[in-house]
């Protein structure tokens, strides 16, 4: 069972989507959630070292989710951070691209709390969290 006090960072350019994800996480008992508008802002926040989990959208201005993920994996301090990618379509190409960039998991929009929980559990399971 994962620690409910984990600090989550939700990355999405659309505020409503951020709020939806935040609410879903809250519903699952995770109350420490912060938001970032794009990949660049997210990296800044992540570099504070405060976060233990990232849920990120794919298509964003400035720095998209995939590029952000690649930079996270390339960073010595951040490379072990679990990143759950949110994709708009369950397309094989997208998911393979996410996987190869080092995503810890993916979830397809729209999703419910149950789906999100399942995806999180899977990542915790794998990482032994």
């Amino acid at each position, binding site marked *: 069972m994962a620690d409910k006090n984990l600090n989550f960072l939700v990355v999405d350019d659309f505020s*409503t989507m951020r*709020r*939806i994800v935040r609410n879903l996480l809250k519903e699952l008992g995770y109350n420490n959630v912060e938001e970032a508008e794009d990949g660049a802002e997210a990296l800044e926040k992540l570099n504070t070292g405060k976060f233990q989990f990232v849920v990120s959208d794919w298509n964003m201005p400035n720095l998209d989710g995939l590029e952000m993920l690649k930079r996270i994996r390339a960073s010595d301090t951040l490379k072990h951070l679990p990143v759950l990618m949110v994709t708009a379509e369950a397309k094989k190409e997208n998911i393979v691209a996410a996987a190869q960039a080092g995503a810890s998991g993916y979830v397809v929009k*729209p*999703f419910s709390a*149950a789906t999100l929980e*399942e995806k999180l*559990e899977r990542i915790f399971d794998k990482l032994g969290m």
Partner: protein
Amino acid sequence: MAEVIANDAARDAAADMEVLVFALGGEEYGVDILKVQEIRGYNQVTRIANVPEFVKGVTNLRGSIVPIIDARIKFGLENAAYDQHTVVIVLNVGERVVGVVVDSVSDVLTLSPEQIKPAPDFGVAAATDHVLGLGSVDDRMLILVDIDRMMSSSELAIVEEVEAIA
């Protein structure tokens, strides 16, 4: 830990319902979250001639041509402006994808079966036969919209009328 559900579509009718809440002319509406593909801003819509005013036209959504309906006009609301705050809910209706413009989108709520009441005959903007029921959350009342029926009704004219013999 909650039971892991392998397939959301397999949820039975008695289960909780998750809805995306949107506002339209002072009323709050709810639509099944599983029908919602994404939420976007309003941009670059190509007008189509000789269609009802609430059909704003079509737009390019990742290579697909998707119609955009302004529910505010459909429901006769004032000040249907289009700016960077205009919100489009992209919905999956049957096998089609349709964008619907609303006033705003607020949050996602989970409704238990007890919180959902059948729809009375009431005088809100949406016609009663498109309403699944009323959801009450604390002191808020949500009008739960049956999006498939709403979009396939002949007045919305999204889908061509079903042939007489099919």
